């Protein structure tokens, strides 16, 4: 390892990224936009989960307090009422799942329609039925508050978005870029210099890790100013786990970078890896209750372990020792990916 050669390539790669204004800007803007988007969707009053068609109704936007439906039903949160002039019009929308439930305005006995094929329709039907039960017979359950601070969905989602962005940036920024350089012959030109593969790959990886951590700090700070996230554990621990995570993801990128000259094929492989990783590593939703094999399969992705550790530090105040298992798994993955990537690497087409 010659430090001077390594440093020259690291500097060149950093310059390339920072000067490519569009890619550089997008790197920050993309996670910020997603977080901001979800903040608006889940934070405000406009969020609706279920759409209820009502008819006959003709005066534009529905004022729920003006229509004759059960009061208990009208006051349920996350329902949005949409008016139709005739039953046919409403049924057409119901058929194509544009609405989840259709009810005729009027006095009891009420008449409603729901699609058997719609899970959301089923839930609304249960809500509707329960709203018809007289209040005095419904005292079988007592509501308890959950202990500690409640975690907003955006608090839960935010680290997922950051880690997902990290994953895409690591895989594409290393995998795709090196394949492109192999294809256009830039790697061949470097091969005939004294630079060795280890120096070249280390420079690529460290440049990307520097960028990932830089992005993380900027996006975190920016989003925190708007959404005021609560971090129960230590920021240093959080940073260390993200750092280890970026190491493992970048190392995975190096495997993709090791061979191949077709950008199209590499894109396919990148999608093949990144999409299941995005869906199965609990970026967007929890796998609680998913089939066992799906939960097991998710364990092969570094992102799963990064998120598990990060969320425990952020939400439960866990320390590094508490997330020791994740740290060990991520370290082993990093070393394994590096070993495979380095042994497969080829400068030539």
């Amino acid at each position, binding site marked *: 390892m010659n430090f001077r*050669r390594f440093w*020259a390539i690291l500097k060149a790669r950093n310059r*390339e990224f920072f000067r*490519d204004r569009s890619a550089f800007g997008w790197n920050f803007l993309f996670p910020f936009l997603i977080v901001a988007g979800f903040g608006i969707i889940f934070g405000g009053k406009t969020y609706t989960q279920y759409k209820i068609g009502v008819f006959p109704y003709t005066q534009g936007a529905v004022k729920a307090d003006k229509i004759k439906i059960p009061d208990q039903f009208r006051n349920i949160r996350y329902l949005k009422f949409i008016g139709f002039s005739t039953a046919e019009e409403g049924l057409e929308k119901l058929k194509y799942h544009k609405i989840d439930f259709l009810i005729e305005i009027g006095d009891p006995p009420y008449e409603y329609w729901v699609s058997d094929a719609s899970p959301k329709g089923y839930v609304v039907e249960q809500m509707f039925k329960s709203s018809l039960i007289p209040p005095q017979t419904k005292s079988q359950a007592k509501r308890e508050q959950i202990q500690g601070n409640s975690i907003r969905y955006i608090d839960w989602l935010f680290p997922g978005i950051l880690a997902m962005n990290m994953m895409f940036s690591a895989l594409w920024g290393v995998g795709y870029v090196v394949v492109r350089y192999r294809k256009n*012959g830039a790697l061949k*030109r470097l*091969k*005939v210099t*004294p630079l060795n593969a280890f120096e070249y790959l280390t420079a690529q990886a460290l440049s990307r890790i520097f960028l990932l951590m830089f992005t993380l700090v900027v996006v975190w700070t920016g989003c925190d100013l708007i959404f005021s996230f609560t971090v129960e554990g230590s920021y240093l621990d959080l940073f260390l786990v993200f750092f280890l995570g970026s190491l493992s993801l970048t190392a995975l990128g190096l495997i993709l970078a090791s061979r191949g000259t077709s950008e199209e094929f590499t894109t396919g492989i990148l999608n093949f890896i990144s999409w299941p990783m995005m869906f199965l590593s609990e970026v967007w939703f929890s796998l609680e209750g998913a089939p066992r094999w799906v939960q097991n399969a998710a364990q092969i992705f570094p992102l799963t372990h990064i998120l598990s550790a990060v969320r425990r530090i952020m939400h439960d105040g866990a320390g590094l020792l508490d997330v020791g298992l994740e740290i060990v798994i991520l370290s082993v993955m990093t070393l394994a990916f590096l070993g495979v990537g380095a042994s497969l690497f080829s400068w*030539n087409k």
Partner: protein
Amino acid sequence: MAALIEVKHLVKKYGDVVAVDDVSFSIDQGSCFGLLGPNGAGKTTTIEVIEDVIPPTSGEIFYKGKPRGASFRDEVGIQFQNTALLNFLTVRETLATFQSLYPKTARIDELVELCRLSEFIDRYNDKISGGQRQRFLLALALINQPEVLFLDEPSTGLDPQARRNLWYLIEKIKTQGKTLILTTHYMEEAQHLCDEIAIMDYGKIIARGTPEDLIKRYSQNVTVILPKKCFKPFADDVSLSYREVKDTIEIMTDNVNACLDHLLNFKIDLSEISVRSPNLEAVFLNLTGRKLRE
């Protein structure tokens, strides 16, 4: 003169295709060696095996009498036929980056002056013209003060003026005592720059020597060229062997005066005649029966 590079029984196969077929030659220190041949003759494959970019199927390469060691990369400068460089770097930054990769280096300002890079030195390396790019790539190949310089078709795609400029530059580099190895399919270029030439075709070397040697050996004849329309009516009567090339006929002769007398006897219109001295193009034609850039 000692041989700096020796190539012994080099074979390179890609599946069933034999790109280089048992080629041997040696290159003297301080000389300019040209590998000449049409596209697909195996020139680039041969030169890339010597450069250690691709491994040979069989055969040996010796540098300074020994197999190429770790110092080989420090001592050679290479200009590929097509080279992409790192994006978003200026010409100066690219030179500086490559400078950092070598233990012994040339000064950037000297290279800027030698290769005339000053007008575009601070431009991004993908925002320069074809001629500028070739001069820049040549400077990049010289960044480590190489003892041996490999140039793979350095003037392909350049306009005639840019080509002349590049030749002038290569001649200047020659005077510094460096050993040059270049491939080309321009006969004129080889004749102008090379001390020694090997002509390749179908993966084999079919002739070797100095340009003058080769011309003397394989093409002593002068070519007399006439438009077909002037010559054809008399073709049966004139007892001269000729060959047809597009709209012209070419008569090979070792006695121009006798040939012209003969044509005048038949009152053939010679107002559009041209006469070509022996050159490497004719050598190649005589050796293979093909034109170089068919």
